[in-house]
Each structure stands twice: as structure tokens, then as C-alpha cells.
């Protein structure tokens, strides 16, 4: 096994572990946060009993997620009489896989020098360094949008092949909504691409490591505050969550395009929704919040503008960067859940006019202003 391959395998394992953990934990976070927001207690009854004892581990209801997952796995997998069995079976996978794959191009840490971390393997690694990113692609941002496009196919295929009118309506809504907001998302990002002159996510994050005007971190949100708001809005719409949950609107369409799915297939739609919260958080962190960067943290340690420095070892710096990234992602997930439990659902015409008459002109105006500013400054 070559060192590159080993490192990539470790990264993939890490990414999968992080995403699935986020998917599982966010179900709990969502319930608890919603409860706290509305002066309630939240789910706190499921427990694990240590065998042969009466010790019950409740842990603030953390095991409700496990109980739900187990229930979904053990339920009957009811299948409708549909003419498109292949499409029906493919639907959840096409909705789930692209969401996970997007994480491949997101840098979740700085540069890793495994020879420094494991001196015993230093010869094998030969002093090579690796950016902490599964696929260090030049076209990272384009990959993100490509996979975002595939997710539309998953939702539409699921709704189409269920042979159910509610699913069908949900699929149509999902298609038009996702295409509209994908457009807004792409146009908001163009401003950032103009500023940084690259679509490589790792290069973008590296350019966000300094400070502006001496005290502000050089994060994307400082350069492009409007784009940040628009991107988060479009991201929540991409994820089909309240206030943009028209494709699955319970009160109108039962549960929209996955009405006919049961057991773990339905669970995969739910899981992909929760993982997408984390992925949108990770994308927003990467583009607008400086990714793994903390102000004044360099590869050698903290270097403060007043002249003070704190020397840190390579392992410590890597750990700080990874934890910083996860913390930012978690805060954004929590913010998305806050939005979800605050706003009521749009009406369908409001949703589309919001995208085409409000967000799109705003993002184009933002792009024009950015282009003029970049042209004037260079």
C-alpha cells in the first residue's frame, strides 16, 4: 500500500464517520433544540440498560436516535405496485450518495505531515505532506454543484416512480425549486470566485487565513456579506427544509416525493436531509467562515499582531484546525435548525417569486458590484 493511498483511506474513513455522526446526532440536536426554543424538555425516555444491572443510561435522550434507526431498520419495507421498480429502488440512493460525496472536496484541516506525527513511519512517508481533503481537485466548487444537480434527480426519480399523485406533485415541486435555488447559489458564489480567482476550495480556504484591516479575519463573509446570506438561504432551500419544504409539505402532500417509501428507504431520505445540513454547514464554513482557519493561527502556532507568538507542535495545530472546522460546522447546523423552527412555510408562488424576483436580482447585483470593485482594485 502506498502512503498516498493509506492517507486517502484514513481521510475517507474520517469523512464518513463525521458525516454519519452528524446525521445521527443532528436528529437529537434538532429535537432538543426545538424543545428548548419552545420551553419544552424534549425526548428523554429512551435508555440503554447495562446488561445484568438496573443501571439505565438516559444521557439526555441521546438514544432516541438509535431507537428510531433500529425501528426503521426493522420495519416492513412496504413497496407500492409501481411500473418503475428500478427507479423506485434507485431514488433513495441517488438522494443520499451525492450529499455524502460533496464532502470529498471540502478541506477539513490544513496541511498534514504524517511523518512528523508518526516518527516511526517517517521513512515510509518520505517527508511528503497532504492537504486534509479527500480529493484535492482544482475544480472543487464545480464538483459541489455537479453533485447538487444529481440530488435533484434523486428526488424527482423517487417521486416519479412511486406512482402516487402526491409523490408526483412533490417531485415536480422539488425539481423546479431545486433548479431555481441552484441558480441563485451559483450566482452568489461567482463573487467569491472573482475575489479569489480560483474554484479550488483548498486554495480558497488558504486565502482566508490572514486578516483584513489588521483585526478582521479575512473570511469570505467579510468580503461578501450579502452573498453569505443568499448562499445560506439557497442552501436551506436546496435541503428542502422549512421554510422551503414544499416538496414534502406534510399538510399538503403527506410527505411529498417520499410518501411511498417506508422503513430504511424513508430513513435514507431523512438521513440525507440531516447529513445535508452538515454538508451545507461545511460548505458555508469553507467559503465564508475561513474553513479550518482561526485568526492568527499559522502552521507554526499562534502569531499575534502585537508580536506575541505561541509555538505549537504539528499535531496540536492539526488537532486545533480539525476541531475548529467541526465547531464551525456544528454552529452552522444549529443555526439552520434555529431557522427551521422559527419560520413558517412559504406558499408555492411566494417560494418561486422569492427565488426569481428577489434572490436572483440581488445576487446578480452583488456579482456586478463585486466585479466592478475587483476591476477597480486591480
Amino acid at each position, binding site marked *: 500500500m502506498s502512503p498516498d493511498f493509506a492517507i486517502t483511506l484514513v481521510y475517507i474513513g474520517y469523512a464518513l464517520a463525521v458525516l454519519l455522526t452528524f446525521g445521527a446526532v443532528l436528529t437529537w440536536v434538532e429535537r432538543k*433544540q426545538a*424543545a*428548548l*426554543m*419552545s*420551553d*419544552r*424538555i424534549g425526548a*428523554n425516555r429512551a435508555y440503554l440498560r447495562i446488561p445484568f444491572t438496573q443501571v439505565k443510561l438516559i444521557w439526555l435522550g441521546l438514544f432516541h436516535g438509535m431507537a428510531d434507526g433500529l425501528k426503521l431498520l426493522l420495519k416492513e419495507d412496504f413497496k407500492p405496485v409501481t411500473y418503475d421498480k428500478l427507479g423506485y429502488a434507485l431514488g433513495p440512493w441517488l438522494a443520499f450518495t451525492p450529499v455524502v460525496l460533496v464532502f470529498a472536496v471540502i478541506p477539513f484541516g490544513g496541511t498534514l505531515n504524517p511523518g512528523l506525527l508518526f516518527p516511526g513511519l517517517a521513512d515510509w512517508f518520505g517527508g511528503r505532506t497532504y492537504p486534509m481533503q479527500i480529493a484535492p481537485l482544482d475544480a472543487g466548487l464545480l464538483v459541489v454543484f455537479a453533485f447538487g444537480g444529481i440530488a435533484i434527480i434523486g428526488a424527482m426519480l423517487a417521486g416519479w416512480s412511486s406512482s402516487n399523485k402526491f409523490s408526483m406533485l412533490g417531485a415536480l415541486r422539488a425539481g423546479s425549486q431545486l433548479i431555481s435555488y441552484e441558480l441563485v447559489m451559483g450566482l452568489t458564489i461567482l463573487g467569491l470566485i472573482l475575489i479569489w480567482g480560483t474554484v479550488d476550495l483548498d486554495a480558497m480556504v488558504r486565502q482566508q487565513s490572514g486578516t483584513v484591516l489588521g483585526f478582521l479575519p479575512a473570511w469570505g463573509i467579510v468580503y461578501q456579506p450579502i452573498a453569505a*446570506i443568499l448562499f445560506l438561504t439557497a442552501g436551506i432551500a436546496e435541503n428542502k427544509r422549512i421554510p422551503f419544504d414544499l416538496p414534502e409539505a406534510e399538510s399538503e402532500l403527506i410527505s411529498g416525493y417520499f410518501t411511498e417509501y417506508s422503513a430504511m428507504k424513508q430513513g435514507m431520505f431523512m438521513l440525507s436531509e440531516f447529513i445535508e445540513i452538515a454538508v451545507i454547514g461545511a460548505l458555508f464554513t469553507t467559503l465564508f467562515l475561513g474553513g479550518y482557519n482561526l485568526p492568527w493561527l499559522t502552521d507554526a502556532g499562534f502569531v499575534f499582531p502585537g508580536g506575541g507568538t505561541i509555538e505549537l507542535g504539528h499535531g496540536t495545530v492539526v488537532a486545533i484546525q480539525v476541531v475548529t472546522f467541526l465547531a464551525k460546522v456544528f454552529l452552522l447546523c444549529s443555526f439552520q435548525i*434555529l*431557522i427551521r*423552527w*422559527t*419560520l413558517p412555510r412559504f406558499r408555492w408562488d411566494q417560494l418561486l417569486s*422569492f427565488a426569481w424576483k*428577489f434572490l436572483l436580482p440581488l445576487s446578480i447585483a452583488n456579482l456586478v458590484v463585486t466585479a466592478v470593485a475587483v476591476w477597480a482594485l486591480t
Partner: protein
Amino acid sequence: MSSRKPYVRKRYWNEPEMGWYERAYFFEVWRGVRITGGVFLANLWKFMTGRKGALTAYYPEETRADYAAHNRGKHILTQRPDGRPQCVACNMCATVCPAQVIEIDAAFDPDDPSHPKYPSRFEIDYSRCVFCGLCVEACPEDAIRMVKETPDLPGFDRDRMWLKQEELLNWQPKQDVAKPYPDAGAGRTRGAP
């Protein structure tokens, strides 16, 4: 045909009007998020400092302290000074009970001329009891009462929701009975039947 007027939507005097500020949507979203986020952070802080951010009682581990004094809770059987039940097994409560949950077996105690009839079995099926309090009103001897709390009311098994006589008799204030008894049982060594 031509005389029909086109439909004109009625305008109300207090129709909501949205200015540019409301139409821009993001400002109002920010206002809403500040409210809910404030509640969330306040409750999170309470929760992290060991308080509850809600009025909810963790029933059945916790019971509320503010039950009304006349709340109809769990049944108890009042006791004579020697600890035996005041009940004379007249079956009035069992007769009046609309849910028919009270079962009484009467027995005869020849050694106690002032209270010869007593219940050898007095059981209440709590899975069916409706807590109407008619048994308390029907009792001529003030032998059955309802306290305001309902400790250990929930259960996982219907068969175990029968309230037995020992449990009914573990009410502590023994002197609080309406009917004074001659000390017929004084000095008796025999335990309660």
C-alpha cells in the same frame, strides 16, 4: 350577460400593509430569529446551570407540589387506633362505584363486639378507576378517603394495578378518624386481621 359586474375583491379597513422593510423579508427573519434564538439561549443557559428551562414535571419521577388540597388522588383506608381498618365491609362503596372497581370480601370477628364485620380483602383496580370520589361520599363510616397525591400510579402491567389492602392501609395519621371507638381492642395482642 353584459350587466354582470367584474369581481372586485373587498378591501377591509384594517388590511395589513407591508412596507419595503417587511417585503425585504430578511429583516423580519432576523427579528424572528432573534426572538427564538434568545429563548433558546436563555433556556440552554438554564439547562447548563442545572435548572429546567420548562415548567414540565418529569412525571412519574417528579410530581407537582401544587395539587389542590381537595384533589381526588389515591384511595386510603382509615384506621382504628389499633391499626385495623375502620371499614365495616358494608359494600356501599363497591355498589355505588360507576366503574365497579372495588372488590370487598367481608369476614366476621367474634372477638370484637363493637366492630364484628371487617374486610378480609379490600382491593381496587386502578387500571379502571375513574377517580370520581363517589366511594368516599357513599361511605357511612369515613373508612375510605382519597389523598391529593397519586404516588406510583402508572404501571406497565394491568394485573399489577390492583391496589391491595396493605397498600390502602399504609396511611400514617391513625388518629384522624371521625368515629370515636370505645377501647374495645385495647390490650389485644392479636395483630390486625
